[in-house]
């Protein structure tokens, strides 16, 4: 990885520089296209796959079974509630999950017993839950309220800290981009939307803005140093800051994504860790997209917003004039 160190050196000195700010005409359409696809996927694919928490119903989970034959479960449920067709999924190597319509207490107990008998496991290995249909909606409503409140508060906090509302606007825009794309990936993967997934989405809020703030802080530092005689334009100063923090962005992205990827892996292949899996898919996508969007969307957008300012425009024009003069 000495190469990354060398890469970092070159980025820092400006020997090597990726033009994130200048090439925004390339990044914006990509971002818009990705967002459009993300919105289109659930629309075309028939919406999100909502978990039982949102539909309401009864769910049974049988652990440590020797035979994961799904018809056993369907028959067991039918033996108790004749008209109900169970939705059966195999979880991990030795688990079976059975979802039914809402059952009464007595039916739940009978189905539990029937399932335990069908799969030849003790009744302790059968987990049952009953979820009223408003449960998931309640959590989502709270989550949405939290989302709005957080965005407003974070925008105010950032505007105060950076002394410009334009950084807030750029950061929030890239945050929304992250949320939309993460939701799109979630829909494309066909994972169920569960309260755990909602938690994952909410964490993206924190991470996406966190990452943006780190980079913006460097931008603030660099642009604050621009004197009247500055040899670089505002956009170039922003771009240098992004380049100088690029190694950090990569390292942070990797370090944050590694544990989450571990959760996703474990959650997908080990029984019973659905919560982990749902949280981690949203998070993994969110972390990757969040790191990307800071560099490719937030920073160029901020530069664009500020470049229109009169002071900055006159200074940039002078800088460019001096440069042309020097070249001649």
């Amino acid at each position: 990885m000495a190469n990354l160190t060398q890469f970092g050196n070159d980025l820092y000195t400006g020997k090597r520089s990726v033009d994130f700010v200048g090439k925004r005409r390339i990044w914006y359409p990509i971002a818009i296209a990705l967002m459009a696809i993300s919105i289109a996927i659930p629309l075309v694919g028939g919406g999100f796959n909502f978990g039982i928490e949102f539909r309401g119903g009864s769910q049974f989970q049988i652990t440590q079974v020797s035979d994961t034959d799904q018809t056993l479960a369907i028959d067991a449920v039918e033996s108790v509630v004749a008209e109900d067709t169970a939705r059966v999924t195999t979880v991990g190597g030795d688990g079976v999950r059975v979802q039914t319509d809402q059952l009464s207490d007595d039916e739940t107990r009978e189905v539990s017993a029937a399932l335990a008998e069908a799969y030849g496991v003790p009744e302790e290995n059968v987990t049952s839950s009953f979820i009223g249909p408003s449960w998931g909606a309640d959590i989502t409503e709270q989550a949405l309220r939290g989302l709005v409140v957080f965005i407003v508060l974070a925008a105010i906090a950032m505007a105060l800290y950076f002394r410009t509302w334009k950084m807030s606007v750029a950061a929030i825009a890239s945050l929304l981009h992250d949320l939309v794309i993460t939701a799109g990936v979630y829909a494309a993967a066909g994972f169920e939307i569960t309260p755990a997934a909602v938690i994952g989405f909410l964490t993206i809020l924190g991470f996406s803005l966190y990452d943006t703030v780190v980079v913006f802080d460097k931008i603030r530092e660099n642009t604050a140093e621009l004197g009247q005689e500055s040899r670089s334009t505002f956009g170039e100063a922003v771009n240098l800051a992004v380049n100088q923090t690029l190694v950090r962005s990569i390292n942070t992205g990797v370090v944050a994504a590694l544990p989450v990827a571990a959760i996703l892996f474990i959650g997908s292949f080990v029984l019973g860790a659905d919560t982990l899996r749902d949280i981690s898919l949203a998070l993994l996508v969110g972390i990757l997209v969040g790191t990307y969007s800071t560099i490719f969307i937030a920073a160029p957008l901020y530069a664009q917003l500020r470049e229109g300012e009169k002071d900055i425009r006159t200074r940039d024009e002078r800088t460019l004039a001096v440069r042309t003069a020097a070249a001649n």
Partner: protein
Amino acid sequence: MARSTPVKKAWRSLTWLLVIVAALTAANAGGVLFSNGSWAPKLALDLQGGTQIVLEPQLGEEETVSNEQLSQAVGIIRQRIDASGVSEAEVSTQGDQNIVVAIPGTPDRDTLERIESSAKLEFRPVLFTDVAATAATEEQTPTPSDSAAPPLESTPSVSPSDPSDLNWITPALQDEFDNFDCANVDSLGLNVAPVDHPLITCDDTGQFKYILGPAEISGERIADASAGLTTNSQGASTNEWGVNLEFDGAGTEQFAEVTERLFSLEGARNQFAIVLDGRVITAPTTGGVFTDGNARITGSFTQESSKALADQLKFGALPVGFEVLSRDTISATLGTSQLNSGIIAGAIGLVLVVIYSLFQYRLLGMVTVASLIVAGVLTYLIIALMSWRQGFRLSLAGVAGLIVAIGFTADSFIVYFERIRDELRDGRSLTGAVEAGWKRALRTVFAAKGVTLLSAIVLFVLAIGNVRGFALTLGITVIIDVLVVVLFTHPMLQLLAETRFFSSGHRLSGLDPKALGAVYRGRAQFRAPTAGSLPKGSGSSREAARRQTIAERRAALADGEGTSARIDERPDARREDALTKGKDS
């Protein structure tokens, strides 16, 4: 500022950290020794196995439930569970109206029913009663032609003077009563029936149906209820079981007033119905005027049935009815397997982070690892303390929050290390770079962690259930993260910067100025400026060129002064340079 300040400061910070860890450990040890604290954090039901029931109040249109009612309900449900002998059950509120009951293990059926019975208790005078069976025959002809007939008068012609007044029974009500079928009583939602109107309902067994007056006393007025053998006027036990009732202050007055009125009435109107969730559990006749708030219900009770009624009266008196919103039973095996998955995932994630840090930052990566360990210890202690003092329980979502925090925490170190490297590239000595990099990094870390903390707080305040547990662990780890960076990572680097291994810029230290392309390298040794390597044109490279010149200039300045310590005292030298230059031109 004395020259030894960074080292002294470093030791001071580390001492503080030690004090904090010792204090947390002592507090926890105290909890374990003298109270019911534990070294291991308590686990939530999804990791431990058990049953969780979420109850939602049944409210009519535009009704809300007050905090007071909610905490009253929580208290009553807790009593019910305690009475059933289940230990370690937890009853808490969730959001602004739900109640969560968490019971370890798998509770038996009776316990579940006891908890879930939504139980709204009220006392109503009986206006009219009849045997239920007669209605069943009439019910077979639910004449649709009725709808064509003129609607029966449904408002009392004479406004009733008291709840026992027969004027409550309007022709419409009478008709409804005549056609009332006790089999439907469950589906009518009588438990949310308005308290100030008469009510048609049946008794528990479905044998009798009643027209009851408006509610006179609500269930929470019962201070106590107990089952016991009744005594006769001589005070001798009669071998007959009864239920003793005791009202609170307001209840006593209401009860006296009601019994006074009912005692003078005849027949059914002498009866006083105790209504639980819209069903009459008993309708005793009034045998006197009770002014002292104590009453006894007698009848054909057995020891069991009197005990059951006493329990219902005492614990069934919820101020609002509740229904089950969700019920989750997690088997202990599933809980263990989820916990194991979480731990395995965390371990894998941690190992990956360690490998990557070592790869990227060489020995400096060890500081990351050590910092993560310190953060881990602090987190563990605080969670153990909170589970003792605040009843916090670690859920699977919480575990996920902790694992995710590994990445967030490590990022503080990355931001700091990169800043140090930047300063080294600018040509500072290591000691100088550690200090100058710190000032800049700390600002960034505070700002960025502030945003994360904000998100954790907003989620914690607004969200419910699992989201809350997740937000809490996230918030805790953010605070600990900042604490560790300030009190451990930075002091460690201050101390390490003094060691030969790091200050000489050893190849494996991760802070090798040569590898970082620094202009200034080692003590008073310089590399030739690399102006020729600059590409033409790009503004950012010109910016860099400007910086390099300054860096070199300052390095030369330092050389002129003879020590590198001179730079340490002026960490903002570069900015001053830029400013001076700006004025000059």
